[in-house]
């Protein structure tokens, strides 16, 4: 780490980043989407450190969302979608937690959540949209009036207002901005100058990062300044938005990281099976999360054979011909 004087105070091990920046009751946003680029290593570390009462604000964060809920770290949830594609049409621990009344939750849509992060990133208090008019997303607020007094919860789920720029009747929804305490993203590259580069789709990662007070980036590689500055049109975030940079190869496993590795279908199936049963899920957590001293130990347990199977063809970005049934 001494090679990077520009980011010396931001480079740190994962356990330190979680210890310094994630706190009980924090409002947390995580990057990625369903089976892609979830900051899984960070999620595992949050569970290991026993962080509680998290207020999670999500669009479609599949795997990380589900395991954080399953491990009991989450108290409150604003969510658009909890599914993992074919591996779990509805995330299993999420589903159980809702059905058993264990979560404070409120439903939005993906665009609504993305727009709320955008509003936070732009520093504006709300943003309008037509999406949601007539739906039960508006009709049913999930949070109680007491919860709405929390400073990180908007006092209204939505406001419906007339468009002052229209001479005809034109109603529109206003969505309150989101400004998470912390956002965690998993990126492919961080430069020695602190520049973050995400390859492939960015989902709502950049809006989530810019909306947050604190940003933790886990990444596959720390790369030289000369590499990250070769084509700045491809870069995603300048250094001044990030507070912690952590090198964690395979840090998104079992979700995919475009150009580096694919999702791990066997692991996701195992997870789903164990998540279906409370006792099995405890075993799963003991075996795969609490029992692991580090992400390196976890990867050893995943095993070289699987890591090679899911290794992405860099020209395609995924593992061609991977057994996915």
């Amino acid at each position, binding site marked *: 780490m001494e090679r990077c004087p520009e980011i010396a105070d931001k480079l740190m091990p994962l356990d330190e980043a979680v210890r310094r920046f994630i706190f009980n009751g924090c409002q947390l946003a995580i990057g990625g989407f369903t089976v892609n680029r979830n900051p899984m290593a960070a999620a595992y570390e949050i569970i290991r450190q026993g962080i509680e009462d998290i207020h999670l604000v999500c669009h479609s964060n599949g795997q990380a969302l589900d395991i954080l809920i399953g491990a009991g770290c989450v108290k409150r949830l604003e969510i658009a979608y909890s599914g993992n594609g074919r591996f779990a049409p509805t995330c299993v621990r999420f589903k159980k937690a809702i059905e058993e009344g264990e979560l404070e939750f409120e439903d939005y849509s993906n665009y609504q959540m993305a727009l709320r992060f955008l509003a936070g990133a732009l520093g504006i208090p709300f943003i309008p949209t037509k999406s949601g008019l007539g739906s039960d997303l508006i009709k049913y607020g999930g949070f109680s009036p007491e919860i709405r007094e929390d400073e990180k919860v908007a006092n209204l789920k939505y406001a419906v207002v007339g468009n002052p720029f229209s001479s005809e009747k034109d*109603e529109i929804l206003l969505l309150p901005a989101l400004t998470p305490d912390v956002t965690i993203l998993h990126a492919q590259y961080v430069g020695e100058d602190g520049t973050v580069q995400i390859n492939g789709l960015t989902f709502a990662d950049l809006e989530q990062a810019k909306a947050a007070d604190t940003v933790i980036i886990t990444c596959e590689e720390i790369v030289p300044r000369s590499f990250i500055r070769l084509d700045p049109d491809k870069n995603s975030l300048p250094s001044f938005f990030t507070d912690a940079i952590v090198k964690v190869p395979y840090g998104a496993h079992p979700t995919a990281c475009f150009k580096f590795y694919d999702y791990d279908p066997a692991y996701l199936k195992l997870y789903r099976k164990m998540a279906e049963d409370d006792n099995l899920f405890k075993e799963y957590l003991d075996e795969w999360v609490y029992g692991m001293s580090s992400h390196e130990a976890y990867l050893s347990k995943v095993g070289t054979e699987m890591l090679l199977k899911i290794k992405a063809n860099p020209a395609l970005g995924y593992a061609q011909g991977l057994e996915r049934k």
Partner: protein
Amino acid sequence: MISYSDNEMMAIAAGRLINDGDVVFAGTGVAMLAATAAKRIYAPRAVVFFETGGIDPSLDEIPMAVGDSRVMSGTSLNSGLIEAFSTVGHRKLHTIAFLGAAQVDRYGNLNTTSIGNYYKPGKRFSGSGGACDASALASGIIIFMQHEKRRFVEKLDYLTSVGWYKGGNSRQELGLKRGGAIAVVTNLGVLRFHKETKEMYLREFFPRASVDMVVENTGFPIDVSGAKKTLPPLPEELKVLREEVDPQRLICQSDMNAPPG
């Protein structure tokens, strides 16, 4: 006679509804088969894109989720959710969204949220995802369903996504200036909506199904008076589906996979 799966029939029937030049917002599973098949067979100038931001990927392998790295590969452009949803709603584009649901009502409104009391539901599903947005903003939606009474209901437990709302002009009166439900494609046939009332009716039943099966499996009275039998999948349609769209047979060979619930 060629054998084919329900998913294949559904993908082909839905694909036939796509016009050249449409911009198609695809989900996963059968929706993705249908979108890709449409482009390769019926509408070569259609563009397929995903809510996650991937536009016109090469789709050499079929993605298992809209967040799959396969939707980022060989694209015209990799962007994000904001760009994708503003594209769905763009006034100059004719955008068609393929969606699945746990429940649909006679006006093509959808539930992908929960069954029972919203606050402590008997069954919880994944939630809106992009469905509410696509339903509100696209030029039209095409819905995939398992045709079952508990899914075709008089009243949704939760209205996640607005189709024709309460019928007639009620969708426009909400402030949604375009869009609405074009069709529901099920394992039994294709349902459309009456021009004026916006009520669902049976337009086509699949060769292996019948009008009676549709009536029995629909939880509200349905007009079947004009229903015709669907043309079965043609050999060239199946060939494209199996050899180009889903060569690994991940979706083709099974029945409809992964409907919420």
